[in-house]
């Protein structure tokens, strides 16, 4: 009978251990962990709602600036989204209200991102060697002094 008490004690200790582990795990492991794999499923929704989309696409711009949008559609920049040259729409409009002036960089560098003649660009793509583009060099002149960015062909 005395041996039976030893066995009982061991079993009791084991049981307590199991309870400690199971309860401990439930505190340490997040609620949605393991539902679809070894990750926290709640994070999927957190990522989906991580931040409001900043770029809203050219069609959103056309909601207010239909005239510009139509002018753009007729020119050779028709496939260039507004937000390529202008700042993302989310910096200009929030919840339907204008919160800041739309930023735009009118510099030669901005045009050069796409059109400066460098190694690597496809041959067919229109490229400009700025230093040879106009007689006597560009000087203080910018691209926009001659070209309309919405319809750049002269």
């Amino acid at each position, binding site marked *: 009978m005395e041996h039976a008490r030893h066995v009982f004690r061991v079993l009791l200790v084991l049981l307590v251990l199991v309870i400690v582990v199971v*309860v401990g795990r439930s505190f340490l*492991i997040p609620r949605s962990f393991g*539902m679809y794999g070894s990750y926290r499923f709640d994070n999927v929704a957190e990522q989906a709602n*991580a931040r409001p989309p900043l770029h809203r*696409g050219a069609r959103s711009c056309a909601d207010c600036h239909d005239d510009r949008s139509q002018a753009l559609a007729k020119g050779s920049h028709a496939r*260039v989204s507004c937000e390529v040259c202008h700042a993302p729409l989310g910096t200009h409009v929030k919840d339907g209200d204008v919160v800041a002036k739309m930023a735009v960089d009118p510099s030669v*560098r901005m045009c050069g991102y796409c059109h400066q003649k460098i*190694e*690597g*660009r496809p041959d067919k793509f229109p490229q400009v060697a700025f230093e040879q583009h106009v007689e006597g060099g560009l000087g203080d002149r910018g691209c926009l002094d001659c070209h309309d960015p919405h319809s750049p062909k002269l």
Partner: protein
Amino acid sequence: MEETRKGTPASEATPAAPEPCGRREFIADAVRIGGGAFAILAGADALGAEPDKYDWDAHRWAYLIDTQKCIGCGSCVRACKAENGVPDGYFRTWVERYQVSPEASHVDSPNGGMHGFPAVKTAFEPTKAFFVPKLCNHCKETPCVQVCPVGASYRTRDGAILVDGERCIGCGYCVQACPYGSRFISPVTHTAEKCTWCYHRITKGMKPACVEVCPTSARQFGDMKREDDPVRLAIAHGRVNVLQPHLLTEPQAYYLNLDKEVR
């Protein structure tokens, strides 16, 4: 109680007669740990809280890059930075320039291509030069998820590889495991960060910011579960390749006109 979904381990708790509080807690905890019905309800709420109920089982996203169309303008890199608040000097997407001859090759990506590319003279005469946009390949069999010791990196059912910043301990194993260099430890959060395919956009029916602004459609994003999706059609019918196919990571970023020099 909601039905457990397919593939989810279901654990049954036998309803017990009123018992002391500790025991009841014990059963409840056991259910939770088994990923049981309590967790299903809690999790379903999390995704159901969205306005138009995004169903991740209805999509499987894929990315397509045509290197012949890329003009190396860096609009994508700038858009990604702005959209995702990527810290300075780190990139979730970047553009590389290759200048190649049969004997030698030269690759550069100054500041990820964010501010364009300078005219560079190489020591050899390149016979071809081109740009290659890079980003996380969102591999099906990805090493980064396999090595994560805390279950912070995972693949969603719609095919995106994401990092749970709350669980990430910043050990950097995934950064080393990624053969494409797509991850970094953020100096702000000290956790692993990477391209999410703009998960906050694609779950709202929008395209990733880099695709949205690409002026030449060199970058495209599509849904493999839509029969008529242009990206699906291109992958199904075109000659596409992936980066480092010998690693068997099954990237979901596909490339058209990929040169052998590109890794």
